[in-house]
């Protein structure tokens, strides 16, 4: 559970980012849970959930912070409509100040059911994606109506980015232990390129070549696997307010050596 020391750094956006970065860098099957719990503490929302999606009607819940979040997701996926589906398909956030206030012509059945069966009023969904790679959604609900303020939106975007990277790492290992739901039976995940033995390049948007050179150097220097090495590089960029490209360049030029212990 969160100690005071873990909660304190979320007071400002930078601290929040840093904490997310540490979660991403550590990786593992606990990362989605930790990201959701961090969001519930650091954002003005009541609940948070992360769901893996491989299609609009193909999803696997990863973590839900409470029963209401779980119910909201379950309704959407059973009905095959709703803000999560729309966010996944469109690749854009769907932000609803009050699910009970107006009609939603895109998802009338879901809206009515959610208003009737759950205490949720505000619903805010971010797709987890980079470029063409869509892996799922991060969604929040709030038990009172009203839009999210700009700071909350900024935090949610950071959290969505972190959730994307943490899920990408998990998908390649073909397990999602958080809720005991196995993922990775999708044959698309099993491509064996020879050149890309972990399939890690398959899901991710292409970076500049220095980034791959730098992850190679981290693999050798820190004894990490490819996913962890890239996550480590990203975490360093997050924490030092730099970009992945810049950090990679510094590593390849041997002006920067990463500490095995900390981002």
């Amino acid at each position, binding site marked *: 559970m969160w100690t005071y020391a873990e909660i304190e750094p979320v007071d400002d956006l930078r601290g929040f980012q840093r904490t997310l970065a540490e979660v991403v860098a550590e990786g593992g099957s606990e990362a989605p849970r930790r990201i959701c719990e961090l969001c519930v503490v650091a954002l003005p929302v009541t609940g948070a959930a992360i769901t893996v999606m491989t299609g609009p009607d193909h999803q696997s819940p990863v973590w839900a912070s409470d029963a209401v979040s779980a119910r909201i997701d379950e309704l959407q996926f059973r009905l095959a409509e709703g803000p999560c589906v729309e966010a996944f398909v469109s690749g854009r956030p769907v932000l609803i100040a009050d699910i009970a206030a107006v009609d939603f012509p895109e998802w009338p059945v879901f809206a009515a059911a959610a208003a009737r069966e759950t205490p949720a009023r505000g619903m805010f969904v971010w797709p987890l994606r980079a*470029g*063409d790679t869509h892996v799922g959604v991060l969604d929040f609900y709030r038990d009172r109506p009203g839009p999210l303020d700009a700071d909350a939106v900024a935090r949610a975007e950071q959290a969505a980015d972190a959730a994307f990277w943490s899920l990408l790492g998990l998908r390649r290992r073909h397990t999602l232990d958080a809720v005991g739901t196995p993922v990775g039976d999708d044959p698309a995940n099993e491509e064996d*390129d*020879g*050149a*890309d*033995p*972990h399939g890690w*390049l*398959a899901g991710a*948007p*292409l*970076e*500049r*070549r*220095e980034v*791959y*050179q*730098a*992850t*190679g*150097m*981290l*693999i*050798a*220097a820190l004894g990490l696997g*490819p996913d962890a090495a890239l996550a480590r590089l990203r975490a360093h960029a997050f924490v030092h307010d730099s970009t992945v490209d810049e950090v990679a360049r510094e590593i*390849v030029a041997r002006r920067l050596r990463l500490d095995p212990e900390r981002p």
Partner: protein
Amino acid sequence: MSEASRPDRAAALVETFARLAGALTVDRDPVDMLDGLACDCVSLFAVDAAGLLFGDRRGTFHVVASSDERPGLVDLLEMQVEHGPGADCLRTGAPTSAPDLEDHETGRRWPVFAARAVAEGFRATHTVPMRLPTRTVGALNLLGAEAGHLPADDLRAAQALADTATVGLLGERTAGSGAAVLDRLRTILAGRMAVEQAKGILAERGDLDVADAFVRLRDHARRTGRRLTDLAGLVVDGTVDAATVVGGDQA
């Protein structure tokens, strides 16, 4: 770079096509094949460097092979197709030359690229598109240390080589399906990036620069009869010990 006499040049061109066709027939590693083609272009034409680029899903072009691996050249090649004369080539689908990177007009259009190219020792650039019937998927860039146009024959030959390579790598297997082309491009690009990762591993373990690391990797692949990108994958997952590749032993 002086040009060979016509019969020699014709023979060299035939030889290059034969190598390219042969590589395609035996399904040689695309990255390795294009690496060879880039080096052949420097021998064949009055240029001093060459690079082949393919586009990813987002429309960003990445160098898949170049006549030399130094980072300055790779960056320049990638800049060329984004903020240089190569961008015109990709947009129009037609060969494009900037025969004098120090002239006023060129400098005005692409100030950053022109300055960088001159700093890297180049005065001229020529780009031919790598094309499928429905789209341009990449570019062959040629860079010259001296200003000047490429002879029309050279441009025609370069285009033919580029077309052969493109159709050979992408056209046959995909039967024109756009999604299949993208998939094949992704595989080729992913192979290149696996090579980059392996370079990083070898550079770190062997205390080399990444250009030297590439040479060790390529040499080891040839010596052991492995595909370049396969070997890269094996270095990345640890199946092949980096020390073996760095040390130049057989394994």
